[in-house]
């Protein structure tokens, strides 16, 4: 938990949001010690909050200490390209309707009404 994310990762996240078909607008949410964005989507898709996590390994401890603002339908971005998350945390997040994963997964999940149900296609 925290803001230990290189600024280029944040600006790159914003560039990706700018380039996504379903993203109408985004704005940074002012929360101390965390990086959160509200994402407004088109085509009647619900607005969601994305938490940019600075964890290198996203574990259950990270999940159960997540910002209170996160609720069902939101997404936790494992922001650092080399960061990872284990299947235990992923399963718990999905069971509570919250998406968890890297930028590629978020880009796909933004097309779905329920972002937690998105599964990255196998290569």
């Amino acid at each position, binding site marked *: 938990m925290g803001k230990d994310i290189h600024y280029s990762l944040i600006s*790159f996240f914003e560039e*990706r949001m700018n380039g996504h078909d379903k993203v109408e607008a985004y704005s940074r949410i002012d929360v101390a010690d965390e990086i959160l964005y509200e994402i407004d989507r088109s085509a009647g898709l619900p607005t969601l909050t994305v938490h940019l996590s600075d964890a290198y390994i996203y574990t*259950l401890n990270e999940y159960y200490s997540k910002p209170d603002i996160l609720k069902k339908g939101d997404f936790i971005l494992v922001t*650092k*390209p*080399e960061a990872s998350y*284990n299947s*235990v945390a992923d399963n718990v997040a999905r069971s509570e309707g919250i998406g968890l994963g890297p930028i590629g997964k978020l880009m796909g999940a933004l097309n779905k009404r329920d972002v937690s149900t998105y599964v990255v296609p196998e290569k």
Partner: protein
Amino acid sequence: MENPEIAYGDKWFQRILTYAGLPAGILFLIFNLNYLALICFLWLVSAGGYVFIKWSRRQVPIDLNLTQEQAEHGKETRSADGGIKDFVALARILWPILNENKRAFRDFSPRSGANSAAPIDWDLGLWERAKKEILGENNRKIAELINDNYNLVPNEFRAIFDKEKSHIFAFEKHLDDPRFDYSDHQFPQDFASLIDTTCVEIAKDAPILEGIIGWLTKESLAQVAANDSFLMGSILRGEFTDSDVDLVLLVPDTTPEEIRSTAKKLDAIKKAFEKEFDRRLHILVFSEPETDSFYSFRESVDLIKQLI
């Protein structure tokens, strides 16, 4: 702490003056007083030469535009005249810069995303920025440190340092002209290993490590009943006062309530740690259902200090 492997030519010169010059002078004095003036003259010339060599090799304070962490760290490694004390001190200044490069390479290079679900353009865009803004800048600092302190590098390590200089030169050329292929001058891993090994060796004796281990084991870890724990990262490489201390825990929690309770305790421990040691404690926590992940991660870390 002095590295016994370092051989200084100056020391031998000093020894010759000390052990040979004076007795030779006395012998000449005994056998032929007429040579006294000549001997004194030669001795003065030798001593003057030694002083001149020392003066010409003096360390001049350098402005490297170091980050706060690097600058703070550098203070501990400077001699009275502001220069870098010795090879170990040079290694300790180089380590955080190399570590930042390693982190940038790990986070941003195309190779780093090979196993991730991130699209390739994410990696490439960031990598291009990281090359210029992090690696290029840091490489210039490394090159300047090496050039200005080459006399501190023991002869047996100079070839490794030369390889790093060649790599930096080629990488700089690649930044100027991306078509320039620097694959013949890839980053020499033996350079990173040499610096890392030197820092690990001196850190073993660092009192701060003992203090931190004592504080964590006696004051803190019992509160969360950790099943397993270890330290990793920069704390095992020396007293990098501005660096986080990285602690990894396996705790027996299984329910959300237990995990939240542990998280709160750990927050309090982090605050107490910062107050005690004036640096941040970063804790990676695995709960009981993540036991396999904990041990997989531990296997992947090159150097750990087991606590429990």
